[in-house]
């Protein structure tokens, strides 16, 4: 009995390990340098994505949106706390969620719920160069790359996924990678993405 239990224990251990695979993704630019602020997400192909943390904050600091690049899961309530404490008028014409939100000094506003996947560009009517980008994804497994170009998607259940990356200034979309997570399979992946900085815009002659 004792001898028989060891392989079973190993099997059980390996299946526990297979249950949760920490996935890391490295992003490099065209020149091979680490690329930060890139959204990385894994969409499950075999199972339905569970719900993750459905709240997010996009602040307004010194008449800029912070952060510039955002990723949330479908159904997330995004709040705009307005650290500036002056009036802002945040809007978007993007199809997933057209909205118009007036922020006043000292008056909290209700969060905006993004209930459809897609890309959203946020602007401010009053300060025309304020811009922020939001990607709404149908998965709780996402991250943004750090300064070293690394993203950690957390512990993903074994199974098949489509791994995707996105940056608002990408020259063209990088092809998605179909990955299979499980015991013995790779859990580190890499992408290359070329960015095209947008032309300088906004009103600088104040």
């Amino acid at each position, binding site marked *: 009995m004792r001898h028989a239990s060891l392989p079973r224990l190993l099997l059980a251990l390996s299946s526990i390990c297979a249950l949760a695979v920490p996935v890391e993704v490295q992003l490099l630019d065209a020149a091979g340098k680490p690329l930060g602020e890139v959204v990385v997400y894994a969409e499950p192909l075999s199972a339905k994505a569970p719900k993750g943390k459905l709240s997010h904050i996009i602040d307004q600091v010194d*008449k800029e949106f912070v952060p510039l690049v955002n990723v949330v899961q479908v159904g997330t309530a995004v709040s705009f706390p307005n650290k*500036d*404490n*002056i*009036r802002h008028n945040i809007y978007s014409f993007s199809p997933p969620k057209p909205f118009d939100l007036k922020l*006043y*000094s*000292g008056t909290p506003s209700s969060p905006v719920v993004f209930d459809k996947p897609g890309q959203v560009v946020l602007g401010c*009517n*009053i*300060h*025309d*160069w*304020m811009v922020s980008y939001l990607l709404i994804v149908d998965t709780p497994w996402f991250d943004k790359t750090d300064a070293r170009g690394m993203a950690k998607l957390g512990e993903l259940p074994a199974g098949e996924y489509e791994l995707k990356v996105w940056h608002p200034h990408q020259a063209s979309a990088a092809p998605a990678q179909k990955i299979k997570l499980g015991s013995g399979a790779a859990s580190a992946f890499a992408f290359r993405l070329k960015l095209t900085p947008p032309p300088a815009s*906004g*009103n600088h*002659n*104040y």
Partner: protein
Amino acid sequence: MRLIPALPSLIAILALPVSADTLYDRLGGEAGVAAIAADTLDKTASDPQTRRSFAKVNMKRLKTLVAEQLCQLSGGPCRYSGESMKQSHAGLHITEAEFYGMVGHLRAVLDTHQVAQADKNALLALLAPMKRDVVEAKP
């Protein structure tokens, strides 16, 4: 007998809506008011004494709204579509010096546009009550 002296003034009253132009007209109508708004804001947003609160502001939108406001105040056919002065200035901490700095730019622009002294005073009198909503009282 009594009616006879009143007759000329009655005629004058009847003629009033036709002959009298509004302050808006004397400011140059739509084009004049738009130019006064734009020039005043350009000066205010470039003067180191007054430009602070205009940083990163969408000036095109602001010029349109101020022109609307001047038009409505001076009796023109516009409706101001912006926020109240209190809401639009909240948190900007506009000082008295900044407020009077902008008034100074407006005076200079009105002079450039050769607005008569009486009309200049009339316009400034219409704008003066805004001070209490624009300038933030020191705590």
